[in-house]
């Protein structure tokens, strides 16, 4: 089985739903008659599936959004090329025609011709007398699945039904007559079932089937357009009818219009939320939980700060009271920008009220705000150590589950830390790792055992992913320093500093050019350390980069994270340095631990970034008369932008040095793939 695809499809629905569904649909309680549909039938036991694509299809059917074209391999894998596709397309459309009991009986006709037990597995719902509300969607899904599994007789029965589907779809809103017709024709087609190929099927159909066929054999474009129109019609009809018919449990043949509208209004809800086979349901829920958790770990790409409603909501939850800065650059309104200096006193005053935040976490949050802890590795280490302390002090009432309670605790800590300062990618990865470990705890473990395991996990993470990784990176990178080299470094990256110091210890002869920039002047700290070690250094500001680059033979840069397209997300100015180096044909080496890799893509520095304190870029040292813009906030026409990070395109990067070796930027996804599979990175 294609192991890489499966989990993805299971996670997909949430993502794919966006934009095409009416949100917040209440999940109607379904009658017991509705159980094992596609989910139940296909996920019940994988052993019975003969084709690898089947699970995909079933899961996919659940998750298809209306506009998504199903991958062609569903259709072409087996003996029903065009038809399979047609059916799959139909499943993505919200046009339904209810199935009459008559039809259900008709369907049962071919039962005897194939393995009954397997059939029962899938269609037990159909056979139960109370399952009155079956529609073509489900039916065709069933058939599609079974058609794939046994390309025998029922495959032949399939064209008929899918044709009917097409018709029903084209019929648009007036399903009343359609349903009757559909039923009738299906009844007719089924006795005519033979093992014929789908394409050459049916001459003995009623006249409606003929045109349907011919239409279907036309270009798929037209077909899709028709489907879309039908869907639109269904939607509008649904709007008109409101949600009235939602809970009508009447038989669909009795009130077909109602039922149809109802389904049109919420296309897939019955697939998703009907009380399916309990096993699959719980499984899915678990999946979704995981999914949710994982989403939370990310440094909030979702919260757009120009979205007023969400920001309000977030604020109500917030612990840290943040004043928003007023004059903000239009392009960056989606990023949080606060008045600096206001949170710390507030947080201090609230110290004794924040009892749900562990003091060590609280302390780390304060350090983030004050800026006393900065730098990716340091922040991540501090955070993990704080979590370690919190887990050490953790105790739980016996009736609670350790896993859930701990996860929620960690979540609240994380959201507190995010309020202090947005998470960086490596912290997100570390949190994901920790949560994965928590989720994997065995239920029988006692509290102390669980705590011991987690604490050793955290220690191991810090040791392996940060400390040892740095050592390996150093040993790799030092090999690239030759005697007589001139190394250019930008800002203050701890790994780069260690590389330089180690190269000096090895007795290599080289010079350093330290390029620095406002407002943080992080390079000065590095300069101080290196000069004390006796290295010959040149210190300059980034303005002089094009001049100094003539002399340089290697550029060593650190990174906050490296993304899957090779883009390096690092301290603002890095992109400029890398670009100039590239123009001068100087190799650029990015030193970055693999736990900072992320599978996200980044094309510019706008979508995801952090805004620093705008005041610091306007202040100039040396007297008041040098600060003509002291009261800039009062000026409506002035916006200040203090970006913290920028994105360096992979073209400018010659090499990324990780603990797994020196790799080209094109191989970042390989590292992510290989190590995530083994759960080694995250």
């Amino acid at each position, binding site marked *: 089985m294609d192991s890489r695809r499966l989990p993805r499809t299971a996670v997909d629905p949430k993502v794919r739903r966006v934009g095409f569904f009416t949100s917040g649909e209440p999940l109607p309680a379904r009658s017991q008659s509705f159980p094992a549909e596609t989910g139940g039938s296909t996920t019940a036991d994988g052993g019975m599936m003969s084709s690898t694509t089947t699970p995909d299809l079933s899961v996919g059917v659940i998750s298809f959004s209306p506009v998504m074209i199903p991958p062609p391999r569903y259709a072409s894998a087996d003996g029903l090329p065009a038809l399979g596709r047609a059916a799959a397309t139909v499943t993505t459309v919200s046009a339904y025609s209810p199935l009459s009991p008559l039809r259900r009986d008709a369907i049962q006709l071919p039962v005897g011709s194939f393995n009954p037990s397997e059939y029962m597995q899938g269609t037990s719902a159909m056979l139960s007398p109370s399952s009155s509300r079956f529609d073509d969607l489900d039916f065709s899904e069933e058939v599609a699945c079974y058609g794939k599994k046994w390309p025998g007789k029922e495959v032949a029965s399939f064209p008929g039904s899918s044709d009917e589907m097409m018709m029903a779809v084209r019929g648009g809103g007036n399903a009343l007559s359609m349903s009757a017709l559909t039923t009738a024709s299906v009844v007719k087609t089924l006795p005519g079932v033979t093992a014929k190929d789908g394409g050459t099927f049916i001459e003995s159909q009623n006249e409606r089937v003929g045109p349907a066929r011919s239409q279907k054999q036309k270009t798929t474009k037209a077909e899709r357009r028709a489907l879309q129109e039908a869907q639109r019609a269904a939607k509008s009809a649904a709007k008109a009818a409101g949600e009235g018919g939602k809970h009508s449990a009447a038989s669909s043949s009795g009130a077909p219009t109602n039922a149809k509208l109802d389904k049109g209004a919420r296309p897939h809800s019955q697939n998703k939320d009907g009380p399916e086979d309990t096993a699959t349901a719980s499984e899915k829920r678990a999946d979704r939980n995981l999914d949710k958790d994982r989403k939370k770990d990310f440094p909030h790409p979702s919260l757009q700060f120009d979205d007023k409603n969400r920001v309000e909501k977030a604020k109500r939850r917030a612990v840290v009271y943040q004043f928003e800065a007023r004059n903000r650059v239009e392009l960056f309104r989606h990023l949080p920008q606060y008045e600096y200096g206001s949170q710390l006193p507030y947080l201090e005053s609230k110290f004794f009220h924040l009892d749900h935040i562990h003091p060590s976490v609280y302390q780390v949050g304060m350090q983030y705000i004050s800026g006393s802890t900065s730098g990716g590795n340091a922040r991540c280490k501090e955070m993990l150590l704080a979590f370690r302390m919190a887990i050490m002090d953790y105790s739980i009432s016996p009736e609670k589950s350790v896993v859930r309670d701990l996860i929620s605790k960690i979540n609240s800590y994380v959201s507190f830390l995010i309020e202090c300062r947005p998470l960086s990618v490596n912290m997100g990865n570390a949190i994901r790792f920790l949560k994965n470990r928590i989720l994997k705890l065995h239920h029988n473990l006692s509290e102390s055992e669980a705590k011991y395991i987690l604490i050793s996990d955290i220690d191991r993470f810090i040791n392996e992913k940060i400390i040892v990784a740095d050592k390996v990176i150093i040993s790799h990178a030092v090999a*690239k320093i*030759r*005697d*007589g080299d*001139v190394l250019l470094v930008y800002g203050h990256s701890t790994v780069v500093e260690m590389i330089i110091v180690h190269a000096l210890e090895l007795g290599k002869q080289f010079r350093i050019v330290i390029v620095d920039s406002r407002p943080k002047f992080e390079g000065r700290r590095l300069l101080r350390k290196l000069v004390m070690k006796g290295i010959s250094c040149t210190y300059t500001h980034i303005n002089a980069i094009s001049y100094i680059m*003539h*002399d*340089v*033979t*290697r550029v060593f840069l650190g990174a906050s994270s490296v993304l899957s397209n090779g883009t390096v997300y690092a301290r603002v100015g890095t992109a400029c340095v890398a670009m100039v180096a590239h123009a001068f044909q100087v*190799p650029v*080496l990015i030193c970055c631990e693999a736990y900072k890799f992320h599978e996200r893509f980044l094309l510019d520095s706008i979508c995801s970034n952090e805004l620093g304190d705008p005041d610091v870029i306007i202040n100039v040292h040396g007297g008041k008369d040098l600060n003509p813009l002291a009261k800039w906030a009062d000026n409506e026409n002035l916006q200040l932008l203090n970006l913290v990070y920028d994105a360096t395109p992979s073209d400018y990067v*010659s*090499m990324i040095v990780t603990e*797994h*070796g*020196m*790799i*080209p930027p*094109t*191989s970042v996804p*390989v*590292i992510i793939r*290989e190590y995530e599979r083994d759960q080694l990175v995250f």
Partner: protein
Amino acid sequence: MWRRSASFVLDKRQLAQASPPHQQILLSSDDMEPNNLPNPNPSTDHGISAYYQTRAEHHAVVTSDWLAQAQAAVTRNAAVPEVLPKIAATGGSRAAGSGKAFSVIDEFNYWRKKPDLAEAVAAIMALAAFIRSSEATTMMELEIELKKASDTLKSWDTTSISLSAGCDLFMRYVTRTSALEYEDFNAAKLRLIERGEKFGEISLKARRTIAMLGQDFVFDGSTILVHGYSRVVLEVLKLAASNRKMFRVLCTEGRPDRTGLRFSNELAQLGVPVKLLIDSAVAYTMDEVDMVFVGADGVVESGGIINMMGTYQIALVAHCMNKPVYVAAESYKFARLYPLDQKDLAPAIRPIEFGVPIPSGVEVERNARDYTPPQYLTLLFTDLGVLTPSVVSDELIQLYL
């Protein structure tokens, strides 16, 4: 030392003043070089890359200067047997400890003598034979012995990328198996032998696989520029010719060992129209070229290749004129190296004949190979398939994980 700008002239002067002895050593070596170079007999050149010696032995063209070299080789032969037994002795003494005289180097040399066999394949065969004849009694012992054998092979010629890459890959391929956890040592050893032989088989077949893949890219009426003598490229063109494809080949001369002459000879025997160019006529003829075919000494992690000197400039010219550059290389040439620029590699020194004495005080660049960065390569034909340069690193990471 490699200096970039004028400011370093000053630096250098300061350095020279600071450390005069160092400079003197440099100077003296400079003085010695002119003495060595005009000498047509390279026998005194201990720094010469063994890899290129082997290649010269295999694909030499019989020309006047080759005859001269052969003459020289007679005198060299006196020296070579001295070296070999020494290595064999070390191997033998090690093997003697385990009771049997088996030398990897002997085995390797036996395979290496076959002209159609690449050095790396010879090494792989030798290592496979080594496992078979090893008398280790535990898995650990066997692994250590194998490691030692591969190290001796690698140290036999440090300039050959494919040799060390082949040894490394063999070690990875053979030892990365669950066999090491087998209870029974003999079963585990059998498994290792099996894997080793399989790897050898794959390596032997690699060239044919590449030819099958590569010949699809040769289309009727195409003009192909070839640089250097690559047995893989020859195999591709042979197959394309035998499939009745009509194409023309432009061969560079391939100074200093004139590999292009031999290559054009081979092609002419196949009935393929060939035209010989001097190495400096590449840009001149590039407009009529449809594609560039080159082999590789090694494929590095960035996806670039290390190949005979001149490949880089051909790739640059081809890139400028939007011509595809195809590299044919077996996967055992994939090396875990990552050169950042041309000087980032240990040079493989090779004698260069200019025919006339070189004026004293003139330096000669004698490096035999250059590094072509991946952005100038279009595709790599390997026995793993037709790859883009970025996949090389993918494969390497998977292998060395």
